[in-house]
């Protein structure tokens, strides 16, 4: 069964990349109206995001982080619509999972609150700056595409090098974390006991979250790739608390940034609805497959796809600027 799953995943990922490359190479991607009938586009979007939804839970990479760069590299939509859609997809995913994680004690609203007070502002700014660049400059979209490729390289390096500590030891909290009572507990089924934790280094953490919020708002990405290492490695949150609280942070940040894209008309139901449905169904199946699949293998496969997408984005941007 495992071998079958691995091969299926490999084939699906290769199909995803091959079709995208063929599409881009044929020049169809650079034309708004291709030879494809118009009604095929919602179906293509559904299929594409369904595959992303299948892979995402197994790889630990959010759907938005896969959707935005791959769509920018392979699809003909403007990067404005891609980012708007990416935001709504990341938002939907975060909103769907956060409430249950909060009720279980895994996502801590008290950690989230001071952090998002700052990162919400920067994610709104990121959305404003991103849309301004693409619309104010004739070649603005190429700058954004190149910047997106660079951010993806950074994400790739973070994923490659960052370790995860299941239960970090926090000996002493900083004064601010102590004053705010940043502690919590949850029932860990693998240990069959209630685990208590405390958080530290809140001021430094807030600085990093501000930066991450700006990037997330500007590129329409979720921010789990950065939130989790900051919460886990810097602030001492157990890995499960870090990933869960990250979802709550993404929900708030992305919701705020989404209004910028909605008000500019950069969110089209034609693109958003099939994408959200595709990734939601794919993620439900992917979550069940994740139990059986080998996560390390899938993680490296997805990272390879991200590296490819990063390269393609940079090449596409440089070609647009007539540098290549």
């Amino acid at each position: 069964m495992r071998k079958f799953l691995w091969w299926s995943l490999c084939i699906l990922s290769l199909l995803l990349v091959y079709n995208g490359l063929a599409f881009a190479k044929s020049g169809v991607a650079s034309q708004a109206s291709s030879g494809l009938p118009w009604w095929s586009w919602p179906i293509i979007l559904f299929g594409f995001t369904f595959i992303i939804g299948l892979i995402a839970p197994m790889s630990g990479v959010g759907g938005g982080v896969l959707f935005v760069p791959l769509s920018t590299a392979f699809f003909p939509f403007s990067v404005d619509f891609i980012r708007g859609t990416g935001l709504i997809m990341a938002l939907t995913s975060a909103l769907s999972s956060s409430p249950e994680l909060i009720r279980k004690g895994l996502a801590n609203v008290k950690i989230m609150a001071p952090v998002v007070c700052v990162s919400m502002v920067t994610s709104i700014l990121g959305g404003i700056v991103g849309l301004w660049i693409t619309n104010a400059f004739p070649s603005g979209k190429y700058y954004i595409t190149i910047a997106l490729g660079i951010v993806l390289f950074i994400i790739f390096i973070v994923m490659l090098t960052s370790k995860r500590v299941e239960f970090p030891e926090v000996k002493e909290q900083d004064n601010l974390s102590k004053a705010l009572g940043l502690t919590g507990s949850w029932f860990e089924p693998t240990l069959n006991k209630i685990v208590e934790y405390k958080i530290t280094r809140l001021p430094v953490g807030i600085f990093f979250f501000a930066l991450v919020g700006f990037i997330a708002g500007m590129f329409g990405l979720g921010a789990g790739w950065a939130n989790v290492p900051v919460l886990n490695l810097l602030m001492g949150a157990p890995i499960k608390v870090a990933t869960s609280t990250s979802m709550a942070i993404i929900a708030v940040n992305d919701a705020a940034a989404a209004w910028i894209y909605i008000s500019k008309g950069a969110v089209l139901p034609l693109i958003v609805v099939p994408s959200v449905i595709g990734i939601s169904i794919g993620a439900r199946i992917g979550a069940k497959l994740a139990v059986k699949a080998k996560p390390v293998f899938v993680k490296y496969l997805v990272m390879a796809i991200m590296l490819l997408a990063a390269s393609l984005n940079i090449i596409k941007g440089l070609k647009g600027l007539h540098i290549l």
Partner: protein
Amino acid sequence: MNKENKVYVDPLNITFAKFMEITTYIGLIVMVIFGLLYLFGLPGFVNMKHAISHWNLPVSKFWEEVKGIRVYGYSWFLTNLTAMDCLSMVGICILALAPLAGVVSGIFKTKGQKAYTIFFIILTIEFLFAILKPIIMPGVGGH
């Protein structure tokens, strides 16, 4: 199971989660149902074929070409609520309001935690600014 039930979760967290979840479900239902009706051919504000032939353009140029309008704010869909895609946009807006619903409801559960009352009020103001900025400062931050 018994041990799981003994985990203490601050009532603030529970209230935040509850109101965020309810709003999420409403938003998802509205977005998906009207979005599907639009995709299956019921009348929309944006003609799908026309949209597909121009969706490579930056967003401001797209709206000029497809509808001959410049989009600022939310009137582009709020004044066309007979169109399925505009109703789907209402669902998307409800989704984007879900965290705000959680934050506002959480304010009433922060008794004795002044810092969190302040945080939640700040978050509410920031959210309202994000929502209202396109209306009160439409030219700021791009056209």
